């Protein structure tokens, strides 16, 4: 128990500490409440996933242990694999879109010839301060098929026909992506801007003297220097995309006819719409395991939790 030993050693060294582990009592209430509302439900979710729980049985305590039956049902269900596929496709397309928008806007608001950059940066991150449900219901209005729908107004003024955004599969998918990109671009811009400000000015000047144009400099000077922070932001935002629930749920419940149910929406609807708590729990756990594995891989490879050790 070297961790404990070193902690005790530090504690006895430190003159500020009076009684060694008494401060633990200050942390415990928060930790206890947190675990009560997080760890306990996780354990209960695991239990539910092994039962045939549904509202009629569960709330009378009559749910029955069914072993791995829920997992077998879920993993052999075409609906599940469709959700899994759509979810990863959504992660890929939305992350690509977010990175593009983030770097593009980041370059615009750090441009050497742009005046009023500070004001622009303050304005541009406004969406970060908006409640998610507000943003998403508003974007649902934008993609509405009704007269006021902004997306169709744009199409019509460009001379194109209207699109039934929320009742066609791929149109709905595009709508999800655009909305997700708008939700997440402030985060990407903040990361990109702070990375761009660290790009060495000397390298740029040297490249300019060598006659490199804007794009050559972007490709060979800017991009290599901002690669790591942007990669880090992409991983975090990929996790957010994977767990996206509100956009499909508010837009069209993952429709039309369940084609766009991202994994979490699928689990939610199996449980609350179709009353299959056990299957829903199994789906959620599979989703958590998948995203957990994805994040672990990134923590392990990209040292995501850097900075904890010296905290």
């Amino acid at each position: 128990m070297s961790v404990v030993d070193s902690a005790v050693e530090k504690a006895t060294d430190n003159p500020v500490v009076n009684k060694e582990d008494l401060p633990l009592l200050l942390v415990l209430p928060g930790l206890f409440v947190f675990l009560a509302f997080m760890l306990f439900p996780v354990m209960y979710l695991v239990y539910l996933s092994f039962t045939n729980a549904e509202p009629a049985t569960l709330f009378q305590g009559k749910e029955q242990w069914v072993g791995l039956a829920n997992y077998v049902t879920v993993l052999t269900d075409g609906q599940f694999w469709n959700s899994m596929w759509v979810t990863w496709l959504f992660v890929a397309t939305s992350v690509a879109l977010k990175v593009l928008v983030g770097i593009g806007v980041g370059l615009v608001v750090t441009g050497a010839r742009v005046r009023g950059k500070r004001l622009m940066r303050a304005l541009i991150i406004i969406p970060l301060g908006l409640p998610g449900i507000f943003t998403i219901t508003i974007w649902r209005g934008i993609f509405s098929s009704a007269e006021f729908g902004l997306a169709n107004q744009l199409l019509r003024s460009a001379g194109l026909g209207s699109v039934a955004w929320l009742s066609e599969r791929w149109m709905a998918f595009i709508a999800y992506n655009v909305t997700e990109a708008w939700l997440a671009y402030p985060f990407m811009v903040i990361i990109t801007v702070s990375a761009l400000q660290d790009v060495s000015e000397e390298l740029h000047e040297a490249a300019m003297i060598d006659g490199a144009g804007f794009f050559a400099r972007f490709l060979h000077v800017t991009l290599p220097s901002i690669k790591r922070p942007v990669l880090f932001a992409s991983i975090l935002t990929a996790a957010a995309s994977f767990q996206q629930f509100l956009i499909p749920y508010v837009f069209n419940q993952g429709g039309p006819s369940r084609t766009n149910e991202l994994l979490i929406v699928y689990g939610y609807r199996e449980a609350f719409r179709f009353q299959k708590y056990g299957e829903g729990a199994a789906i959620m756990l599979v989703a958590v395991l998948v995203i957990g594995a994805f994040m672990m891989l990134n923590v392990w490879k990209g040292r995501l939790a850097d900075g904890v050790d010296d905290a």
Partner: protein
Amino acid sequence: MSVLSDIAAEVGDDVRAAARAPVESLKDARYTLEGIREGRVSAASVLKTAGITAGAVVVVALLLFPLYWVAVGAFSGTGASLYSSSGIRLWPAEPTIEPFLWVIGDLILPSYRITVGLGGYELFLQTPELAFLDVSDYGVTETSNFKEFFVNSLTVAIPTVILAMCLIVPGAYALSRRQFIGRSKVLYGYVLFTQIGGGLGVALLIALYALFVQFGFNDNKLALSAYYAATAVPFNTWLLKTYMDGIPVSYEEAAMMDGAPSWKIVTEIILPLSKAGLATVFIFTFLTGWTEFVVAQTLLSTDNYTLPVGLYSLVGRYSIPWARFSAFALTFAAPIMLIYLFAQRYIEGGLSFGGMEG
């Protein structure tokens, strides 16, 4: 109260800076023009700068256009959508505040009758009816449930803040200033959760709902507050801890030399010096309860709907015109956005690692 006066001062600075901005830019422009005339600056370079800046302004405007579009919608007359031409409108048709009157509804304090019995006599006091706003004066007959949702949101958010502060502040202090068994494990767990656990809420919803129902807590706003406070613990504890780390230990050492007991060091030094961090945590925890949607929607019944759930309940109701919907959404989101905009610098102060000033 010094936090409030600080915030007021910052807001004042911002307003003054904003008011002075046009004057300053005009000065800059005149200076540049002079430079061109005297040949110090080349006109081509100025034109290039102006062109690129204009391009940047267009990009920013396009990104924020959805928000402007909502505002235009909210100020449009409800009749406008019926006979609108299908183009993009940059200015509200038939500008009106009728949608907002529909959202807010009557602001009337009814009259109360206070009766005091005095041995056979009855003394009573009738308070006058205070009508701040009677929307029927403006031709709005039915109104939204905004006020009910608002009160529900308050009764959820206030206990959330109180409970969360009670849990977070001691924990953050201990993690920042003391050494004890498992300290680094707790910290590591908190940081890991804030980075990857954000979406766990929906995944746990089934178990959470089943548990709440079995304990008889569903539709209980206080239980919902406890849940919000619990989810707010990891991130905010870590945030406040990093803020407290920035307060120099030398202050405490000096106080200890003078023989101050450790509780006094906390109340006299640590807490006053971390007021920006405390304000940040206060805002974050308040907004947790104020803006959360999914869990609230699953656990609460119609009577207890908070504002986000109330907003969602209007989605897709064809009896509610778009103007009224966007007015409702804006009334919900605009104060949060303003707090965010004004507090941004203050929050950044809380997020960075200051502490020497003050």
